[in-house]
């Protein structure tokens, strides 16, 4: 999963970045509306975490602009504006969810997962392939009722693949899913994590389409 964080407060942004990084969620962090516009124009994200009180271009404006140009990326508004009219304004402008400051990291992460799951349309969030069962909601991976432990990087790649079974994701797309802009991308990192996944889930679980990228079978 890869999300765009739009937050001008350094302290808040830093901690969200650390927390999401620990969850294996790739994160791009921008500090103002114009940078967010630029990021949305060049990248695709699973979700946007949008602070509404932004310098320069306001969050609501950014949200309206996104929805006007039919950008349907799920957006979670994060703001200190807690009155009902303000929340209604945010939701009307196109926010899919609303989180009031101060919030819990746990809640932020849980809501983010729920948001992305809803957007993907598979509410059961379970992918099954042979003996392998991937539950995106609980982040549990089972092989014949035996739980498999994955590293957060491995999970991030698996999550991206099972989100759209049958679709081929290029190495670059996977790298994007894996790292925010801040992360250093090692040249063969994706191969290493795919190798790890295959070792744990079976050689045929992740299919390599030569020259194009990787996919999991559509079930």
């Amino acid at each position, binding site marked *: 999963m890869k999300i765009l964080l739009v937050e001008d*407060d*350094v*302290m*808040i942004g*830093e*901690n*969200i970045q*650390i*927390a999401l990084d*620990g969850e294996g969620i790739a994160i791009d962090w921008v*500090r*103002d509306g114009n940078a967010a516009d630029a990021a949305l124009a060049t990248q695709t994200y699973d979700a946007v975490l949008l602070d509404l*009180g932004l*310098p*320069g271009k306001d969050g609501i404006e950014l949200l309206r602009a996104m929805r006007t140009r039919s950008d349907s990326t799920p957006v979670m508004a994060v703001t*200190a*504006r807690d009155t009902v009219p303000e929340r209604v304004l945010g939701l009307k402008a196109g926010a899919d969810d609303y989180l009031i*400051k*101060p*919030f*819990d*990291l*746990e809640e932020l992460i849980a809501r983010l997962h729920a948001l992305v799951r809803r957007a993907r349309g598979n509410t059961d969030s379970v992918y099954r392939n042979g003996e392998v069962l991937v539950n995106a909601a609980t982040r549990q991976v089972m092989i014949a009722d035996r739980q498999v432990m994955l590293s957060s990087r491995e999970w991030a790649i698996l999550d991206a693949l099972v989100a759209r079974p049958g679709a081929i994701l290029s190495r670059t797309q996977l790298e994007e899913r894996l790292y925010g802009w801040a992360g250093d991308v090692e040249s063969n990192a994706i191969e290493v994590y795919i190798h790890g996944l295959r070792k744990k889930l079976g050689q045929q679980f992740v299919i390599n389409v030569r020259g194009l990228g990787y996919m999991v079978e559509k079930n």
Partner: protein
Amino acid sequence: MRSLRIRLILLLGVAIMGSAALQFAVSLREAMQEANKLFDYHMKQMAFALKDTGLDDTEWYTSSKPSTNFDFVIQIWSDDGVRVFQRRPYLFLPQQAEVGFSTVSLNNGDWRVYAIEHQARRIQVAQKMETRRDRAISLAVHSLWPIIPVSLLLFAVAWWVVTSALSPLNRIGHDLAHRNADSLAPVSDEGVPREVSLLVAELNSLLGRMANALRSQQHFVADAAHELRSPLTALKLQLQTLTRAKDEAARTQAVARLQGGVERASRLVEQLLALARQDPLSDSPPQAPVRLSACMENAISDVGPLASSRNVEIRLGDVADISVSGNAEALRIMIRNLIDNAVRYAPHDGTVAIAISFENARVMLTVEDSGPGISEENRLRVFDRFYRVPGTSAGGSGLGLAIVKAIADRHDATVHLGHSRLGGLKVDIMMSAAMAETSESAPA
């Protein structure tokens, strides 16, 4: 008597009754004079009528004719002093009085007497004054009776006029009494007389000022609550990051972040309190002569650690040793905020220059930095509470310059933002000196 209406009605009622009484007194007096004149004339006519009749018959003495309404008593004496005639029996009657009109006092009251002498007879007509008075009173009362309904009518009209003239006041009172405790909407002066509309205008102006003050307080509280959420969110997230930290290095880093968050939150709270204390509505600070250079030295030592951590050089220009009138603590906070801002926005290894100069009884404090400066369009807005110049990342509360402005306003000082020779922002604060003390000292 607290009710203006009752007071006016009663006063008007007394005035109406007073004027009615005066009118009664005047007409009674008129009636008295008229009655006197009339009866005197009657008595005279009667006496003249009697002088030509041959009245020597003593039978007259006892004869009794039907009395007239006005109780004239006729007496006739012969020249030997024998009373030959008397009409109407009276226990006391005036004895022979002098010729002409006279007034005689007897035990049964005052008598008006008219006497003439004619052919050895003396004819005297007398009348009790009481009778005259009764007649005059009944005349006066007759002429007066319309005054009573007229007075009542006047009283009713006064009641109505007073009530209707005071009805706008009643309406305003009613309006004020029945509004919400937090409603400071102006009172309508519709249909209010000019004298009262001045009062209403003053009341509305007061209400307006109250509403403004209340609104600005509410904005301040709402802004402050909103602004406090950000550092609180940061603190909460930092704490959670700390509990999630897996190794020692991550934990150490998280603790450092948490400390940063606590410092930021306490700084914000401190500045909010400083701003609240400089609020124009709060009590004015004691005004005493304050040495500006001493405030500046204190402020510099406050900012010293930050400056050295950023390796920013604080350069002192000419520092005039001048006193201004004001509050030392407030002035120190003002100068500290300016220097703190300058140090924060100056780049690493940058420069901040401070000077105090004196000219034409005006003191000018100048703080310059080698930072990015503030663009023309933002210069007006930076004094707003919680306004941060877009793109700045120094993590300020957006209150520093608002506090500077508030303190400057309370000290009748003007703040001017300009461009510094060092490349960044130049802040000039102009204020008047407390006394004509112009001894310039060498740079400290």
